[in-house]
């Protein structure tokens, strides 16, 4: 039985030029979906069906793309929830954080809570799906990976460590059919009161010296940082020295 997989895509933003583009993580979600389900993958976007960026996703080899049409000021989660409830879905793939809008990264969590599914965050790879269970590799900091088993259905958000999205073909993207579903949205009430401005560069943290007298300030400016000297092993046997190092490595859990 082929898997029923949905990839959710959004409109990305190039960090330097600010142009809209295929979002990095969402592209990976489509790539992962293509790997797991092939042509059976359905790709869903909430927003404007005439958005040219959608053609970039379609150019990855999709024959069609579903758009739940609604205006920007509407909340995407209730619409998506209603759409996903209708279908018999196994896996929903998203990015960790969108590149436009609030970029809170809450969509997978809110959907998972509403649908009662587990959510797996920062996935590097979905190794295999068998007997109603998926073997998932999570991307941890410092290049580490953790294996997790999770029962279908679930929602996964893809990390940048996941396999990168394939190149998008312009012609294939143009030929893809975009199916538009009219949806009744709910206005995002909390967002109405927000003010948005271009991001200010954050000030660098200054080193503050809380000295009360000139002499203390002088000392703070000239004194060498005094690290507390560590342990030095000189006269022990080689075996003892090696054991001391090994114990520290075990204590810090870098050797498992």
């Amino acid at each position: 039985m082929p898997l029923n997989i949905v990839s959710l895509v959004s409109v990305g933003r190039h960090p330097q030029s600010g142009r809209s583009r295929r979002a990095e993580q969402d592209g990976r979600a489509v790539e992962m979906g293509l790997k797991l389900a092939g042509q059976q993958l359905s790709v869903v976007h909430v927003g404007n069906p005439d958005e040219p960026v959608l053609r970039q996703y379609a150019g990855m080899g999709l024959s069609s793309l579903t758009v739940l049409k609604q205006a920007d000021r509407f909340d995407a989660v209730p619409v998506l929830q209603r759409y996903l409830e209708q279908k018999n879905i196994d896996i929903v793939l998203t990015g960790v954080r969108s590149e436009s809008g609030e970029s809170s990264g809450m969509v997978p969590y809110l959907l998972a809570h509403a649908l009662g599914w587990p959510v797996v965050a920062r996935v590097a790879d979905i190794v295999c799906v068998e007997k109603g269970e998926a073997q998932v590799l999570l991307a941890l900091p410092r290049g580490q990976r953790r294996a997790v088993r999770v029962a279908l259905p679930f929602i996964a958000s893809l990390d940048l460590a996941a396999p990168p999205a394939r190149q998008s073909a312009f012609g294939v993207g143009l030929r893809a059919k975009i199916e538009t579903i009219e949806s009744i949205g709910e206005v995002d009430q909390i967002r109405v009161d927000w003010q948005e401005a271009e991001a200010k560069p954050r000030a660098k943290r200054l080193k503050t010296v809380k000295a009360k007298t000139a002499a203390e300030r002088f000392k703070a400016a000239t004194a060498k940082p005094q690290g507390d000297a560590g342990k030095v092993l000189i006269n022990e046997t080689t075996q003892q020295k090696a054991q001391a190092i090994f114990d520290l490595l075990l204590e810090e859990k870098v050797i498992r």
Partner: protein
Amino acid sequence: MNDFSSVAVSPVGVVRRDPRKEWMARNRLHPRHHEVISEGVGGEMGANGLMRRNPRQIGFIGPNGIKRIDRLKGNAVQTPNKRQSVVPEVVLPWHVVATADFYIFVVPDMVGGRLSGHDKDILGLAHRLQKEIAGQGAVVAVCFGEVKETQFELAGVDRLVHFAGAEFEGFAAEAKAAALAAMDERWAPKHWLFPDSIHGGTDLGSRLAAELGERPATQAWQVDLEKTVARGAGGSLDISRATPRILFLLEECAYPIDETRHQVLSLEMPEVQRPAPRLLDQGLVAVDPNEIPLAEAEFILSAGNGIHNWAQFHQTAKALGATEGASRVAVDDGFMPRSRQVGASGTWVTARVYIAVGISGAIQHLQGIAQCDKIIAINTDAGCDMVKRANLAVIDDSDAILSALMMLANEKLVEPGAVQGNTNKEDSDAA
């Protein structure tokens, strides 16, 4: 006319001097110098009740007859004195919260069981928020699993909640979120503060926010009681909004606590009802350590001029599961590729544990490892700079130590858990 308090006029009119006191007054390094100098400076009560102070009575006459006035008031730069090398320890005042009117909960990342700089910033922010709210609040830190931190009281933790136990070890996002939801129900904190980080803070906070049905402010960096400025649209927007109850904070959002000590009392923990875990942890997966970028590697074994047996070095790195690094000399001599160089013209590393084998510690190299937590030096020269910087230094030949280390690592590999005497799941899985 005399300026000395050591000078007294006896009843018969004979001027009596105390040469010892004069000597002490001249000698600024004398332990009783200030005592002697300040004698008689306070002035005395005049006939009409006013304090009369003799302006000529400050200072003293030096040995060469010149009047010296010490205006440093005891703040003179301490010259290294062998006889008294005891530095007085600074004891910070207590910040006491006897009964808390409200609580602010902070869930630190506790990377490696210790508070990170990010965590401390957030504790600092929690205290700033607590001061703005009327009434006295307590800042509560919620920790999970193993905790190695010993400085909670200096980081600003008024109350500590520690969920220990096997169910919170390893990957346990669902169990942790359930525990936080139970804490929320029991204590109803004014704010929940999470670090917006890849170490699990964002994931845990998002789970809690979805569970409680509240909208958090993510990537927040300027927070006060009314307004929060948060980054949006991939970091290209600043969104100003009313401060919500749940906040995910960026690094350097506030200054850490550094002027007070805190009580670190424990807080009552409610009974957590845990549903069956839906995400089953299979343990960490062995990754090729040399595939990890050097800048973000956790554990680096670095080689320098003191290495003679390079095959052995590579074998040891493999046995320990360490990423390989090198000093400039080793790279220049062609033993290691340029991409492995650590230091000023190579990579600035952030490893938690850094082993420097045969590296004496040129300043360019020490710059490159400034961010590392624990440094282990293996060197034949006990006086080199790397040994001074290291947390653990071993003075021996590198060949002997590396072969002994390799043997220990191989023993551990054969018999996982035998060295420490524990056989938890994580150990056996990864081995």
